[in-house]
């Protein structure tokens, strides 16, 4: 009998945190309200007192909180990142999620008892990399980049001494995480150091000749006709022209949805499922977490799970199993 998949759920504010816990999350992932985390959007994330209350709420209900401190510390001023680690330890977080080697070294040296997980933004996609983070910094769990097939994940798990957590639902990254500066190229804001990709501050929409144009910085990312639903202009979900033909070159607007793959992920040795979406609202979090709670429990009883359950929550109403299946590549 294998252990049930642990559900790690997003919370961008205290209401979402309570919603996630009430809907069946085992763990909530959250960040402080600054550029130390990779969802550094205006109005999102937790002050220190909010984090303290959130941790109390989860701990009272037998759940945990992982604090994401998963951007890269800026040269010349590591203090905000170090303070975030110190505070996570003081607030009794169940783990911190880190990508930066300099910060892992600091966390291990300063707070050896604080559990360390490797963020997806470290993009550890092979056994040597994962063993390195385990041996050098005592990392106990690795969040795998969204570039691997289920078979590759199974092969990896057979070679490494740490738990793996994989993305189950939400944003579908097409580039190796933490190794993409497309958004900084267009906006000057770096996902790696500022914690924002395709930030709203650089987005604009323009109506022209009955069409809606969406832009990021100086670049048009899409042009929608009246009968098309206009999505948010995330750079890698834009429509571009290559070989004289317009297409969603990198990826169609769609959400990752691994709901139908739970038995395969369990068989591949995965320990935890991550639901993406700290930028999402309470209703979204509640619905997605509840659906996954039921699905994980059903899969634990050996029952089949319907994949279509969350279609309404997906970007553009569409979903994909992404890199988990070879056909995606």
């Amino acid at each position, binding site marked *: 009998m294998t252990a049930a998949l642990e559900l790690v759920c997003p919370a961008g504010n205290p209401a979402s945190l309570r919603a996630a816990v009430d809907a069946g999350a085992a763990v909530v992932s959250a960040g402080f309200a600054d550029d130390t985390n990779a969802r550094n959007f205006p109005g999102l994330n937790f002050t220190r007192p909010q984090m303290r209350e959130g941790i109390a709420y989860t701990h009272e209900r037998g759940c945990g909180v992982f604090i994401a401190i998963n951007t*890269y*510390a*800026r*040269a*010349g001023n*590591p203090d905000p990142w170090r303070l975030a680690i110190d505070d996570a330890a003081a607030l009794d977080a169940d783990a911190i999620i880190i*990508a*930066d*080697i*300099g*910060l892992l070294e*600091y966390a291990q040296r300063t707070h050896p008892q604080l559990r360390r997980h490797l963020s997806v933004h*470290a*993009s*550890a*996609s*092979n*056994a*040597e*990399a*994962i063993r*390195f*983070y385990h041996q050098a910094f005592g990392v106990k769990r690795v969040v795998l980049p969204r*570039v*691997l097939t289920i078979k*590759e994940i199974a*092969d990896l798990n057979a070679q490494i001494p740490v738990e793996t957590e994989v993305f189950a639902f939400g944003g579908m990254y*097409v*580039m*190796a995480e933490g*190794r*993409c*500066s*497309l958004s*900084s*190229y*267009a906006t*000057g804001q770096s996902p*790696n150091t500022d914690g924002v990709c395709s930030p709203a501050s650089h987005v604009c929409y323009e109506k022209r000749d009955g069409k809606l*144009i969406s832009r990021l*910085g*100086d*670049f*048009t*990312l899409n*042009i929608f006709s009246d009968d098309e639903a206009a999505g948010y202009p995330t750079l890698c979900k*834009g429509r*571009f*022209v*290559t*070989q004289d033909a*317009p*297409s969603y*070159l*990198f*990826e169609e607007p769609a959400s990752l949805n691994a709901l139908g793959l739970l038995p395969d992920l369990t068989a591949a040795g995965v320990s935890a499922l991550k639901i993406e979406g700290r930028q999402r609202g309470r209703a979204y979090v509640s619905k997605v977490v509840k659906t996954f709670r039921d699905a994980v429990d059903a899969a634990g009883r050996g029952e089949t799970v319907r994949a279509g359950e969350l279609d309404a929550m997906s970007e553009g109403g569409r979903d994909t199993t992404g*890199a988990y299946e070879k*056909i*995606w*590549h």
Partner: protein
Amino acid sequence: MTQSLSLGPVLFHWDAETKRDFYYRIADESPFDTVYVGEVVCSKRVPFFTPYMQEVLERLQRGEKQVIFSTLALIMSKPEMEQIIELSENTNLLIEANDIGTAALLSGQPHVIGPFVNVYNEGTLEYLANKGAVRISLPWELPSESLTALAKSATAELEVQVFGRIPLAISARCYHARAHGLHKSKCQFVCADDLNGMNVDTLDGKSFLAVNGCQTLSHTICNLLSELDGLQRLGINTFRIWPQAIDMVAVGQTFREVLDGAITVMEGREKLAEHAYFAPFSNGFFHAEEGAAYVA
């Protein structure tokens, strides 16, 4: 300290004989001090150049170039890592790690950390130098403020990219294959069609990016000729130039002449513009602006 010019690895899938001849000319005629060889983007391309590698290495060494073996930026399978293990066991040359797994493999012996490894701060820099990194080629998106701080604390030699399309992102998915309606496993190596990458334009016709298999580069060509002085004042003296399918001997010579004070930056810039005809220059990352910008 003398300045050192590096020619980065060829990122594109050039025909093997073309690439061999390219390196012969670099060996014989160019002013580069260091030349990186090896495949960074796609492991499927490796076998094409293998028959020529030994000749190329010998020719470069006869030309008194320091040769460094560069390696894959994204390693996702055992065979890919085994390629690198085999390389490390069979070469006396320095190896450049572009993935932290490769860096771990080379730990304890002298090696180079490539620009695809995230080195954003002094803590990371120090950690990697203590593990044997003798040269660290920094990520392209670091602004001058970060370079200043890193240069102050560095014990390893720091290298900064000063010319070429910027290798912005790497993926498991091949966009060259996808744009041609092919699957990565049956890609027919269509990436070989575009010597400087495949143009990616916005729907309203603005040039934006360039696709090279699983890699996405900038449309613009990074050019830090005007910033060379400033970099040297920080103590950064090693400059990487990425190969493009243009006269790279001339590009190298232009940088050399500017570094030697034989021509002005303005003259150098005009010369570079003649060669780099297919895209405008950018230097935005250095100036903490959007990477696509050119700050005069």
